[in-house]
């Protein structure tokens, strides 16, 4: 009993100090931009261009206003970003009008830019009080591109021109693009495209295939950096088949009303970007010749929006070995480690507070044990990413939904071990204590719980180790933690960056496991064999 209490005091102190240190845990959903202490939260999706635009917004706002900015980039896609600004967990992010129309509002595609913009502005304002600021001047739409030599050989620059010649070509098209009515089927209808051979390929692989000369034509996003790298020719959509995907800042109405200076700052970006520049910058990010902060700074300087960028002295991960990189990033990584620990400990603490009484209580009601354990077990089978995604509509983004998901994962081992430990604790000893006149409560407190303590703690230990691993996925919903370097490392295909998150995570798992193992030995009652 004393050992058990000590564990919880320890965990509580740790959690409290970590939460205090990072100030990240707990929602920031309340009070949109009212309290001056709350920074403006900028989010982005998990690809280069989204991060670049968000970083450009952030730098402009930092330079042109007195607001402080918190960056939470690399959220897992449109759904997460939208929920973030809708619930007030974030204030703004870069979005595309076509995505707003088709993916978010679920309306039919429309080719008139002005109409699309007008529709999304009206609907977003009415539904969620979200404001589309002026588009930035470029589109990241679908397009068909040809290898340079193919384009030269055919002398084709437009999709109308490609139509009659398409039979001669081999095409590599995205898995989705082959199916979507606003993809290949629509092109066949509008331009009479009919490639001699169509291969369905994953997005990144298409460029490799084009580079190797295995395909002649492919579908692209118009600002892909790879277009510049492989010297591809983007054909003009001369009949305006593809819906417009104009990039624009999407901002909470409440935030804009509180800080109209944001609109003034971002207005400087209105209409000044174009596809060629975006490809170049995206390529720089893909090739990791510079960080997103550097590229954003150079871009703003190139546009004349800020003074010429001062090159940062930080080296990118590519130039450095793993250890020097870890050393350079130590402050950042320490912060991520604390966030990670906070996610794990808070969720674990909640799971213990709920799970231990539940598991122990089930001993008296064994009828309910099976169905309850099965229900909790079912939660365990939901893939982590899916569970995190389910949490977003309920809890927004950030630490809250991550902690909720981790809590659910931690519940099963804790409840199951508490139940099994208590109900199977030395049956003869428990029965004789009962027969000699202990009350139910005395049998539980003085016999079953002390004997079950090692089993109960083993459940907590299992849950903790699972959570250290699973918490790396919390980066997808903006909860921070060691998943942040892991996710961005995966996107950059950079092993050093991945390891800068994965190694501390593994270390953390070992330490947490070691500490709990030591406590487990400590709570094992004297006289009971290990």
């Amino acid at each position, binding site marked *: 009993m004393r050992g058990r209490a000590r564990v919880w005091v320890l965990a509580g102190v740790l959690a409290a100090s970590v939460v205090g240190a990072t100030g990240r845990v707990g929602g920031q959903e309340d009070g949109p931009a009212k309290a001056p202490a709350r920074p403006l939260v900028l989010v982005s999706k998990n690809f280069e261009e989204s991060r670049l635009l968000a970083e450009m917004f952030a730098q402009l706002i930092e330079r042109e206003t007195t607001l402080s900015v918190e960056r939470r980039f690399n959220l897992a896609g449109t759904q997460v970003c939208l929920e973030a600004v809708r619930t007030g967990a974030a204030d703004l992010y870069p979005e595309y009008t076509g995505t707003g129309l088709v993916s978010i509002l679920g309306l039919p595609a429309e080719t008139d830019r002005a109409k699309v913009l007008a529709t999304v502005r009206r609907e977003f304002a009415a539904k969620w009080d979200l404001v589309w600021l002026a588009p930035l001047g470029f589109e990241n739409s679908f397009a068909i591109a040809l290898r340079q030599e193919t384009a030269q050989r055919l002398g084709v620059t437009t999709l109308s021109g490609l139509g009659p010649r398409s039979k001669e070509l081999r095409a590599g098209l995205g898995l989705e693009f082959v199916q979507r009515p606003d993809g290949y089927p629509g092109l066949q209808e509008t331009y009479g495209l009919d490639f001699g051979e169509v291969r369905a390929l994953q997005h990144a692989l298409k460029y490799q295939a084009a580079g190797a000369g295995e395909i002649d034509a492919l579908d692209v996003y118009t600002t892909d950096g790879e277009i510049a790298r492989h010297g591809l020719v983007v054909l003009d959509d001369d009949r305006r088949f593809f819906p417009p995907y104009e990039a624009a800042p999407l901002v909470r109405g409440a935030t804009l009303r509180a800080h109209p200076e944001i609109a003034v700052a971002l207005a400087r970006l209105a209409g000044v970007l174009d596809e060629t520049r975006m490809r170049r910058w995206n390529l720089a990010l893909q090739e990791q010749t510079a960080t997103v902060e550097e590229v954003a700074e150079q871009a703003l300087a190139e546009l004349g929006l800020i003074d010429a960028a001062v090159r940062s002295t930080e080296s990118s991960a590519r130039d450095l070995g793993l250890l020097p990189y870890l050393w350079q990033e130590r402050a950042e990584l320490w912060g991520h480690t604390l966030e990670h620990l906070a996610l794990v400990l808070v969720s674990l603490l909640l799971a213990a507070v709920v799970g231990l009484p539940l598991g122990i209580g089930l001993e008296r009601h064994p009828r309910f044990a099976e169905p309850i354990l099965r229900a909790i077990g079912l939660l365990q089978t939901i893939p982590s990413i899916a569970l995190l995604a389910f949490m977003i509509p309920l809890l927004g983004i950030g630490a809250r939904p991550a902690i909720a998901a981790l809590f659910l994962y931690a519940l099963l081992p804790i409840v199951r071990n508490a139940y099994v430990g208590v109900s199977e604790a*030395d049956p*003869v*000893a428990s*029965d*004789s*204590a*009962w*027969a*000699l*006149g*202990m*009350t139910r409560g*005395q049998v539980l407190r*003085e*016999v079953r719980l*002390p*004997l079950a303590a090692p089993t109960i703690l083993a459940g907590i230990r299992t849950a903790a180790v699972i959570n250290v691993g699973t918490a790396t996925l919390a980066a997808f919903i903006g909860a921070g933690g060691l998943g942040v370097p892991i996710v961005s490392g995966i996107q950059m295909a950079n092993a050093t960056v991945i390891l800068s998150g994965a190694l501390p995570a593994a270390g953390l798992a070992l330490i947490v496991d070691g500490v709990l193992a030591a406590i487990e030995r400590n709570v094992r*009652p*004297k*006289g*009971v*064999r290990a």
Partner: protein
Amino acid sequence: MGAEAAAALELAGVAKQFGGHAALARTDLAIARGECLVLIGESGSGKSTVLRLLNRLLAPDSGEVRHNGRSIAAVDPVSLRRAIGYVPQDGGLLPHWTVARNVGLVPRLLEWDSSRVEARCAEMLRFVDLDPTAFGRRYPRTLSGGQRQRVAIARALAADPSVVLLDEPFGALDALSRDALRQEFRRWRASLEKTIVLVTHDLTEAFQLGDRVAVLRAGQIEQIATPTELRARPATEYVARLLAVHFAGGVE
């Protein structure tokens, strides 16, 4: 039945079912003060059910369990059990408690002051031939099976109950320590005035220890008699067969 004539323990028309199966058919049974009654039978015969009815670990479906003529249905089961000694098979000692703490279990539940508990523990350990200074601080798993049973008996007697229930107390011991412990049990019994109900499946033990022996089979008492009477006049074919098998094996 007058108060002084009342049996120490009594089952009056008691029946108990488990899941539609009769663990104990309607039974009348009286155990006199100071008597040692041995319940013998195969597993499932109902002998443990009788024991658990006596200290209200089980409640009867019908009939009444009486202590000294009074129904125990009205008595608080927890204080009832504290007044009854209990020794299960293999001791049932709490593995995380020292020997001394195990022996002091019931006195401590009864809130005796600690010096009195301590003195009583030492006294009881000496009674079962264990040196209190050598054994008091040891944990049960460091003891032999025979030592564990001695501690269990010391624990059952610690608060000086007038009734002691033993559920196959020597069942898990090797033959030699079983025999030694039986001898000592007889000696202890003679020095204490206890009403004892002991469950076993061993006829030798039953005949050695019991003032009377009740043979149970499928939830019914086939015969209840002194060992001598039982051997002389088995009342049913089952009892006769049981005796025949036993003495043909030449165990006695």
